[in-house]
């Protein structure tokens, strides 16, 4: 077989798109054709909806799609994580049953990892999975589950054995969310939004073949999901980028994106809204205050240098250089930016910072910044865990002494459930 070259791939993708793309098709119908052609996921294997091309060509095909305004396969949110995980660790059964419906967007997915007793320490999950009469039965509780209330399927990490050290007793499952044993409750945050859920399992069930990987091999599978989650964190902003074009298919895509984005509508406020600082400072007159000017300048410096550092990391990646320390700092830097932004917004706003909703500045957006920022240094890995990761993996400092992985999980001290 000859090596594919960019020009040939581009020409082939372009020809196929010119012959097949039609904005008046229904979203599902178009995606069906796209998936069958393999152009929806060019780097996936040919037997699973792909073209078997090297990953470098994904960008080439994406460029051709953008050129004609073609809608891509569905992979926003947990869908993409599910697809990547099942492609890597799933058997033919999983791939045949789930992959296509992920890509068409027919099924919604959620990730059932965190628990009330295990946040930073995911491998401490307590939710039990037991094999009874050839079916898996689940009991326990998950939390921080985005979109659980409209998910069809969940990626579930559960404990199958408490008599071995913690990481070895976990298994990974696909769980049908639409069943009586699964109860979803919204979790309200201090900013009033409810983006996450608590999920309760009372004898929830899954067929034996919904196990992904080996019994006891769940941690390795979960690590794949988490790796894709971290890698995708940068792309999250792009999710909101629905096309403004007219046509039936765009309307359907906009509705899909709106559903996926709904839980994230306060995320810009959580990040601190540095973009609002200058216009607000001019509007309130705080721009003339030398003390506030210094604080604004410090914030802009932090925000710019964080952006440049992310750019350095991307440039290193694009040139195939091994990731340097700059790649691991983004999350911590983003926390600094958000906190500094909340301080500056307060300094700019003055007494009005005590008001929210329609009485508050910008119809409550400033108040929402102030009460959303505390989440940024916790969600997706706390600043403390980030510092440990940087110290241990980048700076190669000694690992934290552990007292939980040298004994059966049943003997590890745990949170008392309240």
């Amino acid at each position, binding site marked *: 077989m000859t090596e594919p070259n960019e020009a040939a791939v581009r020409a082939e993708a372009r020809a196929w798109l010119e012959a097949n793309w039609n904005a008046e098709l229904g979203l599902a119908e178009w995606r069906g054709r796209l998936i069958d052609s393999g152009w929806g996921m060019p780097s996936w294997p040919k037997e699973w909806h792909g073209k078997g091309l090297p990953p470098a060509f994904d960008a080439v095909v994406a460029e051709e799609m953008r050129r004609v305004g073609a809608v891509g396969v569905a992979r926003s949110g947990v869908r993409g994580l599910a697809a990547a995980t099942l492609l890597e660790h799933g058997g033919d059964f999983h791939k045949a049953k789930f992959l296509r419906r992920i890509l068409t967007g027919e099924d919604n997915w959620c990730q059932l990892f965190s628990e009330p007793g295990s946040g930073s320490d995911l491998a401490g999950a307590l939710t039990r999975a037991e094999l009874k009469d050839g079916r898996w039965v689940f009991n326990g509780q998950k939390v921080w589950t985005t979109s659980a209330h409209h998910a069809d399927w969940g990626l579930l990490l559960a404990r199958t054995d408490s008599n071995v050290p913690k990481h070895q007793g976990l298994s990974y499952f696909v769980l049908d969310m639409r069943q009586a044993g699964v109860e979803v409750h919204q979790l309200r945050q201090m900013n009033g939004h409810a983006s996450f859920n608590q999920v309760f399992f009372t004898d929830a069930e899954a067929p034996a073949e919904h196990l992904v990987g080996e019994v006891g091999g769940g941690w390795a599978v979960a690590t794949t999901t988490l790796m894709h989650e971290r890698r995708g964190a940068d792309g999250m902003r792009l999710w909101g980028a629905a096309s403004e074009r007219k046509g039936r298919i765009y309307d359907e895509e906009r509705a899909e994106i709106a559903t996926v984005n709904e839980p994230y509508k306060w995320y810009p406020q959580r990040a601190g809204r540095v973009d609002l600082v200058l216009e607000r400072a001019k509007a309130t007159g705080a721009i003339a205050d*030398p003390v506030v*000017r210094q604080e604004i*300048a410090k914030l802009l410096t932090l925000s710019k*240098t964080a952006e440049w550092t992310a*750019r350095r990391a991307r440039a290193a990646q694009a040139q195939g250089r091994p990731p340097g*320390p700059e790649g691991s*700092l983004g999350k911590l830097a983003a926390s600094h930016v958000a906190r500094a932004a909340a301080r500056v917004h307060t300094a700019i706003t003055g007494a009005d910072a005590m008001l929210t909703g329609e009485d508050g500045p910008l119809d409550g957006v400033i108040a929402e910044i102030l009460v959303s920022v505390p989440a940024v240094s916790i969600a997706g890995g706390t600043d403390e865990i980030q510092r440990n990761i940087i110290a241990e993996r980048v*700076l190669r*400092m*000694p690992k934290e002494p552990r007292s939980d992985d040298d004994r059966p999980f049943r003997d590890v001290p745990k949170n008392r459930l309240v």
Partner: protein
Amino acid sequence: MLRRFLQEKSPPAVVRRLMETDAGWERDAWIELNQQLGLTGVHIPEEYGGQGFGFVELGIVLEEMGRALLCAPYFSTTVLAATAIMNTGTRAQQEVLLPPIALGEVVATLAFTEPNGRWDASGIEMNATPGDAGKFRLDGIKSFVLDGHTADLIVVAARAPGSSGEDGLSLFTTPGGAAGLTRRALKALDPTRKLARLEFNGVEAELLGELGGAAGPLTKTLTQAAACLASEMVGGAERLRVSALDYANLRMQFGRPIASFQSMKHKQADMLVDVELAKSAAYAAASAAAEDDPELPAIASLAKACASEAYLQTAINTIQIHGGIGFTWDNDTHLWFKRAKSSEVFLGDPAWHRERMLQAWGV
């Protein structure tokens, strides 16, 4: 390669020896530096005997010199004086002045600051009056002049009598040994970077570039120099960060390396963030200088402020991590700490640069 060369030529023992001398540098070592690596001419165009590179390459050199705390008149000669001549001088003047600098034969500096301690062009009070044969007479005092007591050639900023602000400013050149010039080394807090006070009493000087037109070129020179200083500071900060990490890994207390304590690990992670963000700022400033980006004034000020604070904070943390030995004379940390402290102020402190950054962005 440059890093290894400077490690060999400028180990702490050599830094300590040179910092105790009045000059603070040695001509033989300076000539060797230039003969072997051509460093003095890095950003000087090839037609004037330089290497013809730009500010990105100059930034890399400075980062390594900051790391090694090299005791040499590099910032004064190449960054300040050569850049000022390139920005201001006529073609004929550049043909005369730049090649000896590029060859390392002439050590030069830029004398712009005065006892008032202002870093902007408007702060210049020294008078230049027309003298004989198209030359000028300089009267006044310059202070905080880098290597001012040892430089062979001095580029001096002065103004027409009675002018103010950015009007009437010109640059002049005069030899270091000119009649009427009294040079005194100041007692610098950072002994690795020598400062001098220069008293001009009717010193004869030649005009550099256009009469009364120096405000723009001088400001540009100082902006480019701020970007360069950011690179130098980032190199020093990274050297300190690594030395603190090495020490934490070696030092045993309570039966384990102190690097295994979470308080140390978190501090090191924060130090990495400080240094890497400052590095990104310095690189952005070097690129902006290389491309003569219209945003350079804002980005250079951002980088100067950011790198100043990162350097000093890293130095403070490095002393802290070393514990008791960290504030002794024998430990090397104070050498970089003092450079961090003097660099924080040199060319304008962080608050001053932050304000300039906002103004450059039109805020």
